[in-house]
């Protein structure tokens, strides 16, 4: 009896070991696209649409005959928003699965912890995270598709400048997104002749920001800018309306979703934010080269998943399309060739913006790719 148990245990152990250590070296026909995303956990609102987008377009590209006549194979691991998990999965992708290119890293933390490993393995890596540190200074093998938080700050401050505002109150959350945005805003404000008179913060799970907003109001500012994502900005917006502050109010691209409008309700009326054209596909000018791409992505995504499209998924769309373009231009999956093709892509019209990459700029977007939207009658309205 116990012998049997031992034999079974041995068998089980052997199967497990085979599962972990099996390095499948096949005829290497498909092009391997590796990915680690935060599809579950606290950052799943980023990772989930990103993963859905990748799955859907890899299927679509394969149905259309693949790339260079080869099928794409998506190898995805879920890091659940944990940076050390992300690092381990990146290690697995480059060392064990030996993927040709990596598209992933939903957050700045997961991207940065994986980047040194991927750099060393000399594998092209397109990150889907925001912070400017990812591509500045330029790392030869690391690219990213979302605009940096600095650009969002520049776009907002630019819009304030055009309205003649010079004194601004800043309120940001202490999470990664908010605190990075705060740093960037403070750094670039002077370039737009804007003075930050009040600089307040709140915890990501706080439920009332009245105290901070009161201090900002009393500082004698002409406009208020809130940098953050999640439920915080919706609460700030509600508190702002409750206090009856009658000053121009700005949010960051972190809340650019219809969900935010639901949470903030009528309090959001009149606020402005920088956002992807994906929120207003039909108000875009017909001459706008992005219009068709944006409409297409929205329609395809919503038809396939039966859920609302998200700007974060669009980062993955642009990442995948850039990767495919680079592989086609390189004519092979030779890593160095793909890398240098990536860094020379010019005029790719994506959902997020129009990309012009260069060896000095591994993101390739300008601040103009953000559209300034205003909330009017509970709807997004294109201003600029």
């Amino acid at each position: 009896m116990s012998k049997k148990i031992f034999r079974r245990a041995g068998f089980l152990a052997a199967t497990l070991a085979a599962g972990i250590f099996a390095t499948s070296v096949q005829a290497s026909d498909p092009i391997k696209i590796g990915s680690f995303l935060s599809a579950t956990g606290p950052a799943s609102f980023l990772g989930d649409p990103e993963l859905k987008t990748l799955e859907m377009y890899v299927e679509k590209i394969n149905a259309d005959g693949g790339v260079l006549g080869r099928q794409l194979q998506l190898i995805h691991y879920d890091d659940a928003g944990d940076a050390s998990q992300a690092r381990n999965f990146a290690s697995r992708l480059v060392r064990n699965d030996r993927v040709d290119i990596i598209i992933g890293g939903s957050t700045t933390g997961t991207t940065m912890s994986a980047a040194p490993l991927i750099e060393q393995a000399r594998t092209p890596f397109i990150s889907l995270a925001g912070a400017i540190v990812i591509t500045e200074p330029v790392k030869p093998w690391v690219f990213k598709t979302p605009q940096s938080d600095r650009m969002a700050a520049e776009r907002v401050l630019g819009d304030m400048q055009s309205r003649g505002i010079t004194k601004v109150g800043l309120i940001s959350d202490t999470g990664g997104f908010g605190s990075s945005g705060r740093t960037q805003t403070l750094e670039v404000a002077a370039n737009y002749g804007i003075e930050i008179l009040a600089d307040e913060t709140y915890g990501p799970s706080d439920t009332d920001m009245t105290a901070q907003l009161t201090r900002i109001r009393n500082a004698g500012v002409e406009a208020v800018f809130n940098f953050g994502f999640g439920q915080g900005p919706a609460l700030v917006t509600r508190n702002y309306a409750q206090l009856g502050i009658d000053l121009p109010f700005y949010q960051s691209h972190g809340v650019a979703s219809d969900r935010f409008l639901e949470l903030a309700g009528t309090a959001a009326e009149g606020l402005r934010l920088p956002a992807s054209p994906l929120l207003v596909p039909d108000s875009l000018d017909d001459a706008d080269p992005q219009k068709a791409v944006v409409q297409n992505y929205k329609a395809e995504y919503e038809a396939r998943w039966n859920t609302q499209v998200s700007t974060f998924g669009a980062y993955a769309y642009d990442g995948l399309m850039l990767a495919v373009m680079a592989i086609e231009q390189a004519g092979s999956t030779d890593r160095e060739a793909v890398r240098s093709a990536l860094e020379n892509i010019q005029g790719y019209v994506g959902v997020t913006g129009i990309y012009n990459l260069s060896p000095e700029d591994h993101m390739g977007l300008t601040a103009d790719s953000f559209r300034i939207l205003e909330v009017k009658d509970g709807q997004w309205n294109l201003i600029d």
Partner: protein
Amino acid sequence: MLNSLFQSRQFGLLVLALIIIVLPFGLQNDFHYDIAIQMGLIAATVVGLNLLVGFAGQISLGHAAFFGVGAYMSAILTGTYGWSPIPVLLFAAVVVGIIAFVVGRPILRLKGHYLSMATLAVGFIIYIIINNERRITGGPDGISVPSLSIFGAELNVFNDYQILGMTLSGTFLWYVLAGVLLLLAVWIAQNIIDSPIGRALRSVHGSEVAARVVGVDTARFKSLVFVISAVYASIMGSFYAHYTGFITPQIASFEHSIVLITMVVLGGMASTLGVILGVVVLKLLPQVLADFQELEMMMFGLILMLTMIFMPKGLLPTLQGLARKYLRKKPEEGV
């Protein structure tokens, strides 16, 4: 005879050393080494934690914070201020030891599980400080850590080294270092357990009143072992930071503390080798289950649940019990 071998602590250390030596033959690429190195470093932390949980019967819910303080002090002092890694590592260990003493000494005079509450609070405070002091710690986005250098010689995972005419990769040397650290951690822990301190601790675990009656200064021993386990965590945190090269506040989080405690309980409390098995299982599972995608967390929970229901003493003690039963039965079968 085999039975007494199983009991002997030197035997355990020997088995562990053998496994560490033999393992490289089964590791096929750098990714496997990568996971093995992390297991070694975390296992050494957990061996220290086990002294507190398994032998003194106290629970620390803030051990990841001590790990984090070690890691972050190494990251900041070597990265930002250019100090040498080893002195920083020792300095961090002293700082963490003092924190643990200040927290533990007054609380451990009380009976019951007050230590877990205090460590919970301290853990949260440390986590929040690391998370919010962006200018110093890099905030939630993390901070990169320079590679380890010992007496001026840099040990970088990504370099190759010429030693005695052989070319060895940095990863392999890190594996050797992690293996040595783990053996050292186990050896020190076993010596503590077998010393008067260890006996005093076990008496505290058994019955604190009885221990006091026979003249054991329970508060002193409990706080001593608490400080030792915190220092273990700090030192391993420093090594871990240098190894991974990038850390985020998550390593100091409450969730990570829980993971560390789970490793102890799963592997087998008060069994030094058992907790190492706990680390191996908990570190391997996410990799093994990664292919199941959405089902991953469910299967993870299920495995933990079943283990705790059917092996309440932990993996290794239960397996040892089974093996012992099997060996005892065998002669009967022969008859």
